[in-house]
């Protein structure tokens, strides 16, 4: 099986490293592909949108309609996982804490609404322990993280942190506001064995 990682910008190698380790743990043999243009989408059995600067990812992909092609693939069943910037893309509603609305497009495929920079700037980034249903306890690193404050429809939160939800799932889509690939591979194992294998 081949899992794609959107590789225009952001921490791609850390995800790559996590997926490989996860496959070893599960004892499956597969590949990891770097998705930079449309025809890297072919033959994928799953996609991960990594953390990074959302604006420049958007800017870089806008020229090559990579996003639209991606939206289609996901809407018709390609399992997807998004971390931090990823979550921003997958959300239908996006607000910005300080500057109200920002005029930027979204993938907008999950019934969640996201507030950017919820905890403030880099200085307020923090590390904590989360106990995620079905995955286990993980050390979670929030970096300039957004927050999922509301969900509706078939979206289901897997954990709560204060009054927002760092992990939300909606059939074949998984959104996280923190970076599992920096501390653990349990999330990727779960992603592969549940969303992809099915």
């Amino acid at each position: 099986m081949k899992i794609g990682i959107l590789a225009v910008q952001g921490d791609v190698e850390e995800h790559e490293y996590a997926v490989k380790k996860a496959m070893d743990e599960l004892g499956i043999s597969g590949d990891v592909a770097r998705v930079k243009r449309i025809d890297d989408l072919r033959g994928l059995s799953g996609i991960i949108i990594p953390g990074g600067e959302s604006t420049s990812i958007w800017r870089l992909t806008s020229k090559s309609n990579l996003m639209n092609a991606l939206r289609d693939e996901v809407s018709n069943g390609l399992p997807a996982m998004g971390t931090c910037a990823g979550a921003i893309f997958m959300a239908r509603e996006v607000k910005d804490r300080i500057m109200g609305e920002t005029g930027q497009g979204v993938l907008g495929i999950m019934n969640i609404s996201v507030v950017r920079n919820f905890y403030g700037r880099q200085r307020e980034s923090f590390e904590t322990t989360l106990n995620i249903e079905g995955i286990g306890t993980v050390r979670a690193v929030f970096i300039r993280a957004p927050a999922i404050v509301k969900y509706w429809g078939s979206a289901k939160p897997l954990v709560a942190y204060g009054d927002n939800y760092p992990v939300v799932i909606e059939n074949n889509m998984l959104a996280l506001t923190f970076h599992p690939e920096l501390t653990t591979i349990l999330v990727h194992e779960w992603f592969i064995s549940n969303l992809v294998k099915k």
Partner: protein
Amino acid sequence: VQWPVKLPDAVPGTVNVKVGFPAMLRNGVIMDVTNVEQAQIAEEAGAVGVMVLDKLPYDVRKAGGVARMADLKVIEDVMNHVTIPVSAKVRIGHYYEAVLLESIGVDLIDESEVLTPVDEQHHINKWMFKVPFVNGCRELCEALRRISEGASMIRSKGEAGTGNVSEAVKHFKLLNKAIQELTSAYRGGDEEKLRDLARQCQVPMELVTLTARLGRLPVITFAAGGIATPADTALMMWLGADGVFVGSGIFKSQDPKQRAEAIVLATAYWDDPEAVIEAQRMVSERSAMMGIDVKTLKSEELLQTRGV
């Protein structure tokens, strides 16, 4: 402005938090800006961050005099008008300018050789800060020394403000060769060589072992100094840079807008000649900045020799 208070077991500014953040800037371009307009240009061009200065390195070189940290107001303006991470430079050793930047919530601090140092012997002890720091280096030892003082990101010094990428190329090749030796010594189980290096570089042993094991610097490493064209940046990525800092190369040229986009493009798609060509077409040599041939610099005009 008020940030929501943290829950009790949230520890800010841990190593992971500080080292993790730069990982998010991979394949990105951070541009030197001196005001809001330039910052917005950078954002639209797809930069992953901006570096706020009082004067661009090229002008620093021309003006002479003492180069200090930028105005706090200018920095705050920028912070309020862009969404991408904002960073600023402080004079080497000036502990207090760093305190100020942290207090106003800058995302990344660059203890930089571009500004006039206030202390020739000691760098700032960066463990005492929650905000990540980036330092310049010319070779492995310098990099490891900065990391052991708490730097969470490294960049090549190159020769800032010359639009000539040759020093950066030299620093990266030196870096790669030294790391390679380390790795092969490590695999060869030749512990003594590791110890020697640890001794030469005056850094603790674990740090050397870690580097040898990973086969690379344990923190994100960007290329900086003299990048002026998409071809340059593609070259640096080809040499193994995780991303690039562009100084006067962009805003000292006549076509800053396109040059910014082109460099962003070439950085992200460096391993695809087609895209780089496209990018290369968006700029023209006439309007590149008038570089300086490093050879013609007298040794006390070199910025790269600052810092220990």
